[in-house]
C-alpha cells in the first residue's frame, strides 16, 4: 500500500489560500483547490504504518491510511467510500476539524505530518463534483419513528444513520434553519453555508424530515414527543455561554461571541441587516478568549472593518512546538496561529480582564486588565495568581466574549425527567441511553463542549444504540472505542 518512500520524496503541502488582504473583503471561503497530482503526492506521503496512530487519534476512527492509499492511486471514488464508511460529513470535518489525527501521525515524529484533513476535504469535494454522492434511501422501512432534537452535527449524523437503518426520522430545530452551530456558529469564510445545504438535500432525499422553528419543550411538550416517537435523541448541544461576572459586564458593547457570530451569519445569509451593536467597523475590538470561537470573532471583526483587533488569553503563551508534557501522539498545547490571526490581530497572553469601563452613555470604552501567573501544585488544580502592579487599561469599543460553554440547557432534559452527570451534562446511563430507555443523548449535551468530529462520532454511536434498542440488534457500524487514543 502507498508509495514506500513517498514520505522521503515529498514535502507536506499546506492548502493554498487567497491573500489575507484580499480575502477579508468578503465572507467567502478563501482556500484554493490543489491540483490532483499534488493531492496524490500528499497521499503518497502516508507510510501505511503497522499501527496507524492517526486512525486512533481520530475520534471517528477514520480509515486514514486506507483512503490515503486510494488517493495516491488516484482511486477517488473508492477513497470516498472508505471515508464515508466512518464519517457522514467529511465536508464539515475537512474544513473545521483541528485534526488530532495529524498530531498523532507517525510521520509527525520526525517530519511534518501527512496532510490528512486536506486529503479528506478534497475526497469529499471530488465526490460532490463528480456526482458520486447521491441519496441512498433505505430499501425498506422498519415502521419505527425517531425524533432527533437539535440539528447540529451530532443530530444530523444520528439522523442519517438511523434513517439508513430504515427508521422514520424527524429532526427538530428551534432556530429557523437546520445546522446548529455549523450554520450560525461557524462563519462563512470557514464554511460557506451552501456546504450544509448541499448535504441537507441529500438527507432530505433520503427521507429525513426536518422541522425548523420548533422548540421541544415549548412548541411541543417533552411528553408529547416521548409519546409520539419510538425513540428520541437529544442532540441539543452545550449552549450555555460562560459569563464574565466582572464590573461593567452589562455595558453596551460587551457582547457574547455566540450572539455576535450568529447575527453576522444571518446577515451574510441576507436574513437581516447588521445591527449596530454587533458591528465592529471602525471600532477597537477586544476578543476575550483565545480559542477557535475567538478566532472566528477576529476574522469576522476584520471583515467588518475594525479599527483594531486584540485577542486576550488568560493562559500563558504556549510553546511553538510540542513539549514533554504533551508528548506525541497526544493533542499538543502549542501555539496555534489561525487564518484569522494571520488576517491581523494583536494577541496578549496571561492576561485577565478585571473590569469593563463604560462611557457616559453606558457604552464600553475600555477595559482594565492584570497580568496573571499560573502556579502549579502537583495533584491540585493550577492556581491563578495576579501579578502585582500589572494593571493596564485598554481602549475598547466592542468586547467580544468567547469564553466557551458551560453545558447544556437544563429545562428540556428536566421536562423529560433525565439525570445529569457531575459536569451538568445529560447522563447516558448506558453510554448514549439516558435513564429513560427510549431517550438517548448525543453530542455536546452528553459530553460537554467539544469538536465537530466528536459530535459526528457521538451521533453515529448513539444511532447504533437507538437501533439496537428498537430492533434488538443493530447492523449500524460502531467504532471500537478501545481504539481511541486516550491520554494518561
Amino acid at each position, binding site marked *: 500500500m502507498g508509495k514506500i518512500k513517498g514520505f522521503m520524496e515529498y514535502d507536506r503541502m499546506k492548502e493554498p489560500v487567497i491573500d489575507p488582504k484580499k480575502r477579508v473583503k468578503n465572507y467567502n471561503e478563501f482556500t484554493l483547490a490543489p491540483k490532483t497530482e499534488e493531492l496524490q503526492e500528499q497521499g503518497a506521503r502516508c507510510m501505511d*504504518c*503497522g499501527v496507524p496512530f492517526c486512525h486512533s487519534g481520530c475520534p471517528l476512527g477514520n480509515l486514514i491510511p486506507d483512503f490515503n492509499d486510494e488517493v495516491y492511486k488516484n482511486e477517488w471514488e473508492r477513497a470516498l467510500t472508505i471515508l464515508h*464508511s466512518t464519517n457522514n460529513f467529511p465536508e464539515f470535518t475537512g474544513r473545521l476539524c483541528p485534526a488530532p489525527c495529524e498530531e498523532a501521525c507517525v510521520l509527525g515524529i520526525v517530519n511534518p505530518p501527512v496532510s490528512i484533513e486536506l486529503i479528506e476535504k478534497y475526497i469529499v469535494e471530488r465526490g460532490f463534483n463528480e456526482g458520486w454522492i447521491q441519496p441512498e434511501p433505505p430499501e425498506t422501512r422498519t415502521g419505527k419513528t425517531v425524533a432527533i432534537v437539535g440539528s447540529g452535527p451530532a443530530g444530523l449524523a444520528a439522523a442519517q444513520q438511523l434513517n439508513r437503518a430504515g427508521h422514520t426520522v424527524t429532526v427538530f430545530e428551534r432556530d429557523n434553519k437546520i445546522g446548529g452551530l455549523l450554520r450560525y456558529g461557524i462563519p462563512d469564510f470557514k464554511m460557506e453555508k451552501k456546504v450544509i445545504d448541499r448535504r441537507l438535500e441529500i438527507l432530505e432525499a433520503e427521507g429525513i424530515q426536518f422541522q425548523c422553528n420548533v422548540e421541544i419543550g415549548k412548541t411541543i411538550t417533552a411528553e408529547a414527543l416521548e409519546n409520539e416517537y419510538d425513540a428520541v435523541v437529544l442532540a441539543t448541544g452545550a449552549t450555555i455561554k460562560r459569563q464574565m461576572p466582572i464590573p461593567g459586564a452589562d455595558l453596551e458593547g460587551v457582547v457574547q461571541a455566540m450572539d455576535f457570530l450568529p447575527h453576522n451569519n444571518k446577515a451574510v445569509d441576507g436574513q437581516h441587516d447588521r445591527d449596530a451593536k454587533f458591528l465592529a467597523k471602525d471600532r477597537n475590538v477586544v476578543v476575550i478568549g483565545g480559542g477557535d470561537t475567538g478566532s472566528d470573532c477576529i476574522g469576522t471583526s476584520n471583515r467588518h472593518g475594525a479599527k483594531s483587533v486584540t485577542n486576550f488569553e488568560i493562559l500563558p503563551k504556549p510553546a511553538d512546538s510540542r513539549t514533554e508534557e504533551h508528548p506525541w501522539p497526544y493533542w499538543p498545547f502549542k501555539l496555534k496561529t489561525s487564518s484569522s490571526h494571520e488576517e491581523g490581530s494583536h494577541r496578549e497572553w496571561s492576561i485577565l480582564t478585571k473590569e469593563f469601563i463604560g462611557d457616559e452613555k453606558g457604552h464600553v470604552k475600555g477595559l482594565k486588565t492584570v497580568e496573571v501567573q499560573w502556579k502549579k501544585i502537583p495533584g491540585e488544580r493550577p492556581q491563578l495568581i495576579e501579578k502585582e502592579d500589572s494593571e493596564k487599561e485598554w481602549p475598547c469599543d466592542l468586547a467580544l466574549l468567547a469564553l466557551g460553554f458551560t453545558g447544556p440547557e437544563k429545562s428540556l432534559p428536566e421536562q423529560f425527567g433525565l439525570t445529569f452527570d457531575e459536569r451538568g451534562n445529560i447522563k447516558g446511563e448506558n453510554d448514549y441511553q439516558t435513564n429513560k430507555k427510549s431517550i438517548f443523548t448525543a453530542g455536546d449535551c452528553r459530553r460537554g463542549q467539544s469538536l465537530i468530529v466528536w459530535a459526528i462520532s457521538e451521533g453515529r454511536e448513539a444511532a447504533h444504540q437507538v437501533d439496537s434498542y428498537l430492533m434488538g440488534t443493530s*447492523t449500524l457500524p460502531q467504532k471500537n472505542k478501545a481504539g481511541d487514543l486516550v491520554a494518561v
Partner: protein
Amino acid sequence: MLPAKQGLYDPQYEHDNCGAGFICSLQGKKTNDIIHKALDILDKLEHRGAVSADGKTGDGAGILIEIPHDFLVTQCNFKLPELHQYAVGMVFLPKKENQRSYCIGVLENEIQKQGLEVLGWRKIPVNPDVVGAIAAQTEPHIMQVFVGRGSDTLSDHQFNIKLFIARKIAEHTIFSSKLSEASYFYLPSLSTHTLIYKGLLIPEDIKGYYQDLKDPAVVTRLALVHQRFSTNTFPTWDLAQPFRYMCHNGEINTFRGNLSRMEAREELLENDLFGPEIKKILPVILSGKSDSASMDMVVEILLATGRSLPEVMMMLVPEAWEKHASMDEDKKAFYQYNACIMEPWDGPASIPFTDGKYIGALLDRNGLRPSRYSVTKDGYVVMSSETGVLDILPENIEKHGRLEPGKMFLVDMDEGRIIEDEEIKKEITTKRPYKKWLDKNLLPLKNIPYTGNKTPVEEEDFETRMRIFGYTQEDLKTIITPMSVEGKEAIGSMGTDTPLAVLSDRPQLLYNYFKQLFAQVTNPPLDGIREEIVTDTSLSIGSDYNLFDITADHAKKLSIQNPVISNEDLDKIKFIENDDFKSTTVSTLYETQSGLNGLEQALEEMIQEVEKAIEQGANIIILSDRGVSPSMAPIPMLLATSHTHHAFKRSKQRSKFGILIESAEPREPHHFSLLFGYGASAINPYMVNEIIVHQTEQGTISLDADKAIENFNKAIAKGIVKVMNKIGISTLHSYRGAQIYEALGLSKNLIDRFFSNTATRIEGIGLYEIEKEISKRHTKAYIHESKLGLPLEIGGDYRWRRDGEAHVVNPSTITTLQQAVRQNKPESYETFSKLINDQNEKLMTLRGLFEFSSFDPIPIDQVEPWTEIVKRFKTGAMSLGSISQEAHENLAIAMNRIGGKSNSGEGGEDPKRFQPDQDGNLRNSAIKQVASGRFGVSSHYLSSAKEIQIKMAQGAKPGEGGQLPGPKVNPYIASVRNSTPYVGLISPPPHHDIYSIEDLAQLIYDLKNANREARVNVKLVSEVGVGTIAAGVAKAKADVILISGFDGGTGASPLTSLKHAGLPWELGIAEAQQTLVLNDLRSRIVLECDGQMKTGRDVAIACLLGAEEFGFSTAPLIASGCIMMRACHLNTCPVGIATQDPESRKNFKGKPEHVINYMYFVAEELRQIMAELGFRTMNEMVGQSQKLNMKKALDHYKAQGINLSKILYKPEVPPQVKEYNTQTQDHQLENVLDFDILSQAHPALYRKEKQHLEYRIKNTNRTVGAILSNEISKIHGAGGLPEHTLSLKFTGTAGQSFGGFATHGLFMKVEGTVNDYFGKGLSGATLVAQVPEKSTFIPHENIIVGNVALYGATQGEAYINGIAGERFCVRNSGAKAVVEGIGDHGCEYMTGGIAVILGDFGRNFAAGMSGGIAYLHSEDGTFDEKKFNLEMVELEDLQDSDRTTIQGLLQNHVDYTKSPKARSILKNWPESSRNFIKVMPTDYKRALELLAKQELEKTV
C-alpha cells in the same frame, strides 16, 4: 514400554538419529573377527550416540550377521538341516513364564498352520549384569526358534512368505491378547540368512551381553551395526536397530503420510501365495513403532511381492529424478512409474541394508547424512557415518568413497564384488517396460482436451460471496494482489500480536486453528529455492492398484505439474471423457437454518454421495463449495476434505479415488498446504481467480488476467514448497496426507472424528462453534448493506485497525510504554502493564487464561532485589543489519549496565565493541549468535561471548532462512559480517552442519572448544514434541535451552509464516519443563523463554511454567522508540531503528536509560507478584505451576472448551530430582588434543616463535584447533599470530570439525583422511589434507575430506589433496581453497573467498552464491552446464589476473600436498590454464565494480 502420555509429554514425538555402519568380506571369508571389527566401528562412533540420565542405558544398539550355521549345529540339541534350508528366529519373550509359554504357543501354532515345522528352541546365553538399570526394567527373555520348511517343494520365496505370515499373525494375535507383557513379544529377525543381536545396550556391551558373539565359532562374511541417539529418553528393546533388512541413520519426515498411504494400499492387497491369509497380516505397519521400524516393515511386504531388495530401496527412497536434466530415460520412467505406486519416504537417511546376499546402503535425495566407505586391498569393505573408524594401514587402502545423494552402494556377497550404482539401477530399471507403460497410461493434465463445458456461473453476487467466505480488503491488497503481480508471497515484519483463533471474537477460518510443524535439531529444514532440483510439486491422481501386481495399471494416473489449477483445468477434469478416469462433483454446502444439525447431516450426506460415486466408478471426487445462497452456507473445505479422507480410510476405500477441491476459501499458502496435508490432490481456488480477474478489470492489477492467475498459482506452489521444506520434505507427493500440523484450540472430539492423529493439546471448540462461526459470517454477509459501511471489511490482521482484529501492541500500549520509560513514570508503566495484562485477560493469549492462585504473601522487601532479577533478562537476537548500529548498541549498553545480556543476532559484531569505549560504555553483546549464515562468526567473535546462542529456529519463521538484500549491506554492515558491500546475503534454512541431533551435539562441542567460558544456548521454537527435542538437546550438552514462542518478531518474513508456524511459548516451555523433569535432565540446563513477553505478569507465568531466564525484544525496541511501523523489511523505518538509511538513522532517539527503565519496571512488577505468591527468589518459583489456575469466569463462547490442565501438569518425581538449574554440564573437554598441543606450544603462542609439532590423530579427536585458536584470540585479538607461527602435522584420520575456527598463525596438516566440517568457521589458519605417502590410490579419485567443508569460513586457506564431499565451501565468506573434486551443491551461498576445483564436481554448483569466485578445471576444458545453478552466477573465461591467482594457489597446493594433479597442471600451465572456467556471481561483480569506482572517486 514407554512411559504413558502425561501432561504435555507424548511418547509419539520421540526422534531417532544414529550412527550406523557395516563391514563385509569381498572374498567371502567368514570370520569371527568381523563381528569385533563391526562393534569397534560403533565404539568409534560413540560420540554420535547418547546416554540417559543413569549413565548406563544407551538408546539401543545391535548387530546383524549371517546365520552362523556351524556354530548353531553344535548348540542345538536337535538336528538342523543344511544352511538356508531352515530359518532362525531371534525372539524377545515376556519375562513371566506363563505369559512366555503362551507366546511360544501362539508362534508355534502359526508356524505350523503354515505347514512349516518348528525344529526347536534355544535359550540364548546372556549376561544380564551389563544391562543398565533403566534397560533392565524391560529386559526380555530371549530365545531362538528354528523353523524347517516342512516340505521339500517349497521355493525360497514361498518359504519366506510363510515365515512372514506366521510371524505377522503371531504378532497380531499376541498384541491383541491383553497380556500384561504382550509388548515384550518381538522378533528381531526370522530369516534363512541373517540373525540379529540387539538390545537396549551401549555398543561396547553388546558382546558382553550376548555370549554367542564372543564364541570364535560364530563366523560371518558380513556384519551390519547400528546405535541409536534418540531424543527419546525412554528407549525400548525392540526399537534398537538393525531391523530385519535395514537400519537407518536419519529421520523420515514424511512418516505420517507414508503410514496413512500404506494403510490405504492395504485395502487392495491380494496375492495367490498369501491367499485369504493376506487380510490377517494387516496392518503391515504395527502401530507405535519408530519411523525406521515401520519402513523396515514396508520393505518386508515389498520383498514379498517379488521385488528385489535394491529395487525396493529405490522405490522407497528415489533419487531426485523429477528435475534431473541428464538422467537416462529408463531410469526416469522407473521412478515415475513407481511414483504412481509409492510416495518417497523422505527425510535425512543413510540406510544400510542387507538380506544376506546383498549388503549395501543408500542415501536420501538431499544427501543429508554422511556415509563414507573404504575398500581395502585385502578384500574388506567398511562403511559407516565416519571415516577412520577402523585402523587400516594407508598402503592397504584401495579406495575411499562416499555415498552420494540418492545413490546406492551395493556389494554382491556371492559374486564378491561391488556393483556400481549405475549397473544396479540399469538392471532394475530395464527389467520391465516402464516407459511404454507410462506412455500408454499416464495422462498429463495438459493432454486432456478442453470440451468447452463450463461450470455454471454463480448466482449470488460477487461481494456477498466474498463476505461469506470471510474475505477482507487486506486479503485482497496484502495477500492476493502481491502474489498475482510478483508471483511470490508478500513479506512482513515484526511478530504477530493478534489473538489465537480460538480466542478471537471475529469468526475465523478453520485453517487458522492449525499451526505448521517444522524441523528443528533432529532433521533439517530444506531450501527449495536454492536446492530446487530436489523439490517437486507434481502429483498424480486416480485409483490405486494391488502392490503385488507389477503391471501397467499402476500408471493409470492423471498427473498434474502444479496442483493449484485454473478454472479451465478444473473444467477439463470435471467433464473428462476417458475410460480410465471418471469424476464426480460433490457439494460441500449445508443448510444454515438447521444449524449444527444441518452441518452434521451435510457431512454425512457428503460421504454417502462420494460412496455412491465410487460405486459408479468415479475415481476423482471433486469437493465443491460453489452455489452458496441465503439458505446454503459452505462447510469449511478443510473439514470436508479431511472428513472425506478419513472416512474412506476407515471404510477401507481410500485407495479408490483422489480428492480435488473446488473452493472459494483458500487464498494463502497455509490454506493450500493444509488441504494437501489432509488429503487433497489438486485445488482450484475459483474465488481468488474471480478476484484477480476483477482486479485486472479494475486496473488494480495491471496484468493480463491469465498471467496474474498463473502468477498467483505459482506463488502458492512456492509457498507450499516453503511449508514442506520447513519440516524437511522435498516433494508434495509425500507431503500429501501427511498431516504435519498441530491443532490449537480444537476439541479432541472434533480432532478424533475429522482430523485423527493430529495433536491438539489445549482442546477448544467443536463442531457447534465451527457452525456458529460460519453462520455468523454467512448472516452478516447478507444483512450487510454497503451504505452502512464498507462492502468488504478492511481486515486489520497485519496492520492495526480499530474495527479489525485486536492487537496487543496498539496505539495505547505503545504510547504508555514510551511515556513510562522516557519520563521514568511508574504510573504510565502501570497503565501500560494493565493494558497489556487486561488485553491478555481479554483473551488474546494463552497466558491471559491463567490467574495466580494459592497466595501466601510476604513483605516485598524480602523478595530478591530488582538488580538480581534483571540479570536473568535478555534482549532478543536482532542483528546489526536488521536494526541500525545506534539501536543495536543502545540495547547492548543498557543490558551491560544492569548485568543482563543483549544478543548480537546473526550478523557479527565490530571487534571495537569488545572493549569499553571512552565513556565507559560496553557495547559488546554478551550473547553472540551462531545462526545458519554464520556471518562474522570467527574465533575472535566467539571468544568475546559470555553466551553463544545456536539459533535452530526463529519464532517468526521457524524452519526458514533469511535474506539481507544487497542495498542494506552497507560497507560497515559488510565489514562486521565479513562480506562484500552491496552483495546480498542469504541465511540458509538449515545449519549445514546440523542435520540431526548428533550434529548439534558436535556443534555444541565445537563452540565449547572455541570458548570454554561461554555458555552454549540452543534456541528452539515451541511446537508439539519440543520437550523431547529439548531432552535430546540437554543430552547433547547445551547449557541453556531457549524456547521461543511463535509470535516473536522478525526483520522480514513471509506473511503466512508470521502467523501460522510454531506455537505459543506457554505450551513449549511447559512441555520442555515437564519432559526434562521427568527425565531428570532439568537440573543440567538453564531454561529460557521468549516471545512477545512484555510485563512482569508475563515473566511470572513463564517462570511458574518452568523458565528461569527471559528474553524481550519488541518491548525494549518500543522503549527505544519503535512505533511498530512493520516496515523493517523496507529500510524506511522513520525512527531510525530498523533501517540502515543514514538519514533515517539520525532520527533514533532511544537512550540506554529507556531500556533500563523498562527492565526495572518489569522486574518490580514481577517482585510484587512474587511477594503475593510468597517467593523470595526466582529459583524457588521456577516450575511451580500449582500457583496458576485457569480463570473460572470464561464467558467467551469459543474459549469455554479450552483445557489448560496439560500445561499446568507437574510430573511426580522423587525429591532429589530438581526443577531448576543446579549444576553445569560435563562437556568432557579434558581429552581434547588441543590441550596436549597447548602444553607444548608456549613459545609459539606467547612469544610468537616458529614451532613445528607432530601428532597421531583419530576420528575421535574432534574440533582440533579450536581451543588453540581461542587462546590465540584471547591473547592476540582478531589478527592472531603471524602466518605459520605454529605448524602442526597430524597423521591418521581427523575427527569432525578439524581446524574449526582455526585462526591466523596456525598451519595444520593432516596426512590421512578427514571427516565432516573440515575448516568449519575457518578464521585465518592454513589447513592441509594430504594423502599419505604410502597410499597408492589416485588422490583426485578418492574422497579424503567429508561433507560441508569450510562452512562459514571467514579467512584462511585450505588445500585438499583429494575429493571433498557435498556442500563444499557452503557459506564461505573469505577462505581460499584448492580441492581436487567435490560433491553436490558446491560453493552454495558463498559470499567471498576463492575455490579452485581441479576435478569433478556435483550437481547444483553455485546455488545461492552471491560472492567470491570459483575456478573449475576439467581435462578438456568443457563443463556440463546443467550441473551449475545459474540463477546468481555467470560463467566466464579467465583474465590474466585470474591466471596469476590460480597459479599461486596451485603452487601452494603442490608445495603443501605434492598433488600430482596440480603439478601436472602447472607443468603445462599456458595450455592447461585454458581448461579453467570462472564462476562469477553477478551481484559480486557489480559490487566490485561499484567499489572500484568509489575507490577511484576517493583518490581523484
